[in-house]
C-alpha cells in the first residue's frame, strides 16, 4: 500500500497538458479539442492518465519519459465570445486499481467561440437587406457549387466530367459550376432574420460558412466599420471571430 501510494502519487507529478483547439469552435456544438500530454519525468514514464475537461475526457495509456502524446476530448462550449479553459483535471488509477488519484492542472487556454450557425434563407444575404445576390448566383463559373449537369461538348476539362452519371447515360455528362466570382456580399447582422441579436448572429455565421463554401466573396458590416468582402479561409475565420465578439468589445 505504501509503495503503491508513492508510485501513484508520483504518477501525477512531472506532467504538463496543453490544449490545441481547432480553428473553428461553435457555440453549443461538440468540438474535438486536441489534448497534448507531456511527460517531463526523468526516470519513469506516465501511466493510465485520464485528462478530463468539462465532463469529457481522454485516456493516455503510456507516455514515455521526455515524450508527449495527444488525444482528443469532445467538448461542448456554451456561449459565443471569448472563453478561457482555466484548469484540467488529471486522474489516474495507476498502479493498483484501489484508488483514483486526481490533480488539477492550470491550462490558461483562451479561445473564441463562434456563434452556432443557424440555417436561414440565402435571399437575405445582401447588404442592407436588398435581394440582389440571388440572380447572380446562376452564373457559370469554374470553382463554385454544382449548378446543373450538361452534356459533354468536347471543350470541358476532364475534371468536370461527372463519371458516375456518365456511366448511367449514353454520353459523357459534365458538371456545370457556378462562377466563383459571384457578386460579393456584405452581411449586416442587424438586417438578417433570426429574432434577437444572437439569432441574427447565428444566421450570419451560417451565411459566412455557406458563401465561403460557394467561393463567394463575403464581407461584414459592423457598427461603425465595414469589413470588405473577400474569400479564403483566413478571411472566413476573421469574419466568424468578429461575429463571436460582436457587441462584446
Amino acid at each position, binding site marked *: 500500500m*505504501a*509503495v*503503491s501510494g*508513492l*508510485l501513484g502519487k508520483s504518477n501525477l507529478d512531472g506532467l504538463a497538458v496543453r490544449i490545441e483547439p481547432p480553428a473553428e469552435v461553435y*457555440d453549443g456544438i461538440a468540438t474535438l479539442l486536441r489534448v497534448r500530454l507531456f511527460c517531463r519525468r526523468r526516470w*519513469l*514514464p506516465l*501511466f*493510465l492518465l485520464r485528462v478530463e475537461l468539462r465532463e469529457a475526457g481522454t*485516456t493516455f*495509456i*503510456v507516455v*514515455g519519459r521526455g515524450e508527449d502524446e495527444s488525444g482528443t476530448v469532445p467538448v461542448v*462550449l*456554451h*456561449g*459565443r*465570445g471569448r*472563453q*478561457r479553459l*482555466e*484548469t*484540467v483535471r488529471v486522474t489516474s*488509477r*495507476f*498502479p*493498483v*486499481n484501489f484508488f483514483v488519484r486526481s*490533480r*488539477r*492542472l*492550470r*491550462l490558461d487556454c483562451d479561445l473564441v*467561440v463562434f456563434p452556432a450557425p443557424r440555417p436561414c434563407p440565402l435571399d437575405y444575404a445582401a447588404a442592407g437587406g436588398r435581394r440582389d445576390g440571388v440572380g447572380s448566383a446562376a452564373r457559370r463559373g469554374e470553382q463554385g457549387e454544382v449548378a446543373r449537369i450538361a452534356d459533354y461538348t468536347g471543350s470541358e476539362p476532364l475534371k468536370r466530367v461527372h463519371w458516375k452519371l456518365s456511366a448511367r447515360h449514353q454520353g459523357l455528362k459534365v458538371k456545370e459550376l457556378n462562377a466563383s466570382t459571384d457578386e460579393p456580399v456584405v452581411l449586416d447582422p442587424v438586417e438578417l432574420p433570426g429574432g434577437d441579436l444572437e439569432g441574427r448572429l447565428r444566421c450570419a455565421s451560417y451565411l459566412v460558412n455557406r458563401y465561403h463554401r460557394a467561393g463567394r466573396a463575403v464581407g461584414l458590416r459592423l457598427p461603425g466599420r465595414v469589413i470588405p468582402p473577400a474569400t479564403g479561409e483566413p478571411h472566413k475565420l476573421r469574419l466568424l471571430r468578429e461575429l463571436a465578439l460582436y457587441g462584446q468589445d
Partner: protein
Amino acid sequence: MVRISTLLNTLVWVVAFLGVAPLYPYLGRPVQFALPLALLLAVAGERRPALLLRPGLATLLSFFAVGLYAIQISRSYLVEPVINILGLLLAVRLLTEKSGRNYLQLFLLSLFALAASSLVSLSVAFFFFLIPEVVAVIVGLVLLCFHAEDPGLGLDRAAARRVLGTSLLLPAGSLILMLFFFVILPRTQQPLWNFLNPAAAAVAGLSESVEPGSVSNLAAVRTPVFRAESEELPPEQLYWRAIVLNRPQGRAWVRQVPKVAEPERVSGGRAVLQKIVVEPRRERFLPALDIPRELVGVRARDEGDRVFITSRRPDQRLAYTAVSLAGGELRAAAKVRPGDYLELPAELSPRLRAAGERIGRTGKTAAERIALTRALFVELKLSYATSDLPRSADPLDEFLFVGKRGYCEYFASSFALLLRQAGVPARLVGGYLGGTYNRLGGYYLVTDDKAHVWVEVLVDGSWQRHDPSRLAGNAGIAFGAGRQQGLSAVAQFVDAIDYYWNQSVITFDLGSQFELLQRGRGGVQKLRLELRPGRVWLLLPGGLMLAGAGWWLWRWWRTPIAGRLLKGYRRALQRHYGEEEGKEGEGLETQALRLDDPACAEFAEIFDGALYRDRTLTREEQQRLRVLIGEVGQGHRQEAPGG
C-alpha cells in the same frame, strides 16, 4: 502487440501454481487431482474459451466444494478441510471465464493457499515460493489496473516493457518493507496455530532412561536433533551432554534429581561458545558441549549436575547460547555423599558382581580400580555393534561374558556397575557424540544416530569422563570413519540454508529483536572506535542523508508559522484550482474573489488582516486558517457557463 488479458492470464497461472505448490502434498486426493486438471484446462481455455465454466455453474461448484469439506470441520480437525476448500475454490476459479473481479479472487485465493501452507509446514521452501508469488501478484495487480481501463487493451512491446519494468518497482519496494517489518514488528512467543496440531513435529530421541537389552537391533535414524554454531573442535571433545542417569533400577538406569542444593562447579579448560538450535522434541533436556557452564537465552532449570531442563513447550524449535569448558574439571558438590553413587540394582549377575569385587580388592585407589576395569574391558575383547544384541534375562552378563556384542548403553552400564561394585562412585551421562561440521554455516549438525552414553567417575572430588565404548575391539572403525561420516557438499549447502531459515525466521522472536537492537548499538560504538581515517567515505551516504534531513528540519523550523500556513494554502490552491500564485500583482484577496471560494476569501481576510497590521497570528487565527486550508475548493460555486 501484447494483449493485457494474455499477460494477466499467464500471471494467474503462475500465481496459482506458486500458491498451491507448497500446500500440494497436504491436500486431499480429490483436490490433488482437481488442481492440476483445472490449471491445464485453464491454459487450454485461453485458446478454446468453450472449455471454461459459465459464472453461474462456477458459483454452484464453489458452493459444492465448500460444503463438501465444511461438514468435516471440527475443533480438532480444522486445517485440512480449510486447505482443501481453498484448493477447490482455486480450481473452480481457474476454470471460470475471467473478469477483473475473478482475477482478484484468484490472486487472493493463491495468496491464502500459500499462507495456509505455513500452517502445515514451516519449511524454508515457503520463502522461495513467497518471493516470486509476491512479485507475480503485485505485477498482476498493476496489469489489472490496465485491464480495468479496457479489457481488450493491447500494448506494443515497448509500452509493455515499460509497464512491466515500472510495476516491478512495487514488489521490490514491498519486499524491502517486508524485511523491515519482519525485524521490527512485535510477535508472539508461541506460534498462533500451534494448538491445531500439537507436537506433530516432535520425534522421539534421546530417552530419559537407559535399558540395555530392550532392543535387539538399534536403528540409526539420521533425523537432526540440534545444530550448534561454534568453532570446529577436535573429534574427541565432541561430547554433547544432555542428561545424567544416576540410579540403577532393575535392568535400567534412571534419573533422580540430585538432592544437593549446591551445584557442581566447573573450572579450567577452554571456554567454547555455542549457539544451539534444537529441533522440536519431546524431552526437555537441553544439550550442550560437555562440560556446560551456563545456558543463556532460554529459561532453563539448572539441576546441579550440569543438566539443564527447559520449562518451555518442547514441541517447538528452541534457540539458546551455551558456554562450555572443554577439557575442564567438574568438581562434585561439597556435600555430595559418595554413597549416593554406589547404589547397585537388587539383582546383579554373579559373574559381574565377582568381577567388581575382584577389582575392588585388587585396586587400592579409585584410579587403580578404573585402570583395572578398563583393562578388563580390553581383555574381554568386546565389540561395538548395533545388531544381534543380547536379549536374555541378564543382558549385561551376556554382553560381558557370552556374546560380547553391544552398543554404548551396554558398555557404559556394565562399566559403571563394575566400578560401583568396586566401590568407586560412578554415573551415566546421556547425550550425543560427534556431529557433522558444516563449514558453510559454521555449525555442527547432530542427528539422532549420534546419541551416546558414557560414564562419569568420581575421583578425588572431581567427576572424570570415561567412554568405555572406546575400549571395544572395533572402536577405531565404529567411532572413527563411521561416526565422522560427513555430508556431501550439496547436502551441506541445503542443510545450511535450512539452518539459516530456522535461525533467522522461525526462531526469530522478541529476544532476537532485542539482541539485534543491542548488537546494532554495539556495532555503532565499535564503528566509532574502529573507523580509520581512510574509511571515512563509508559514512558519506549516511552522512548526506542525515545532513539532508537536518537541513529540511532547519528550514521547517526557520519558516515562520505564517509562512508555513501560506505554503499549505498555496498547496491547497494548486490541488483544487491548479494554481499557486495569483496572477501578476494579484493579492490573496483579489485571487479569492476571482476564484469565488468562501474559504479562500476568509483565509485572505484573516491572513492579510495580520500581515498589514504587522502583528503575528493569534493561536485561534492559526487554527482557523488550518481549517480553512482544508476547506479550500469545497464551497466553490460551480463556474457559470462562459459567455
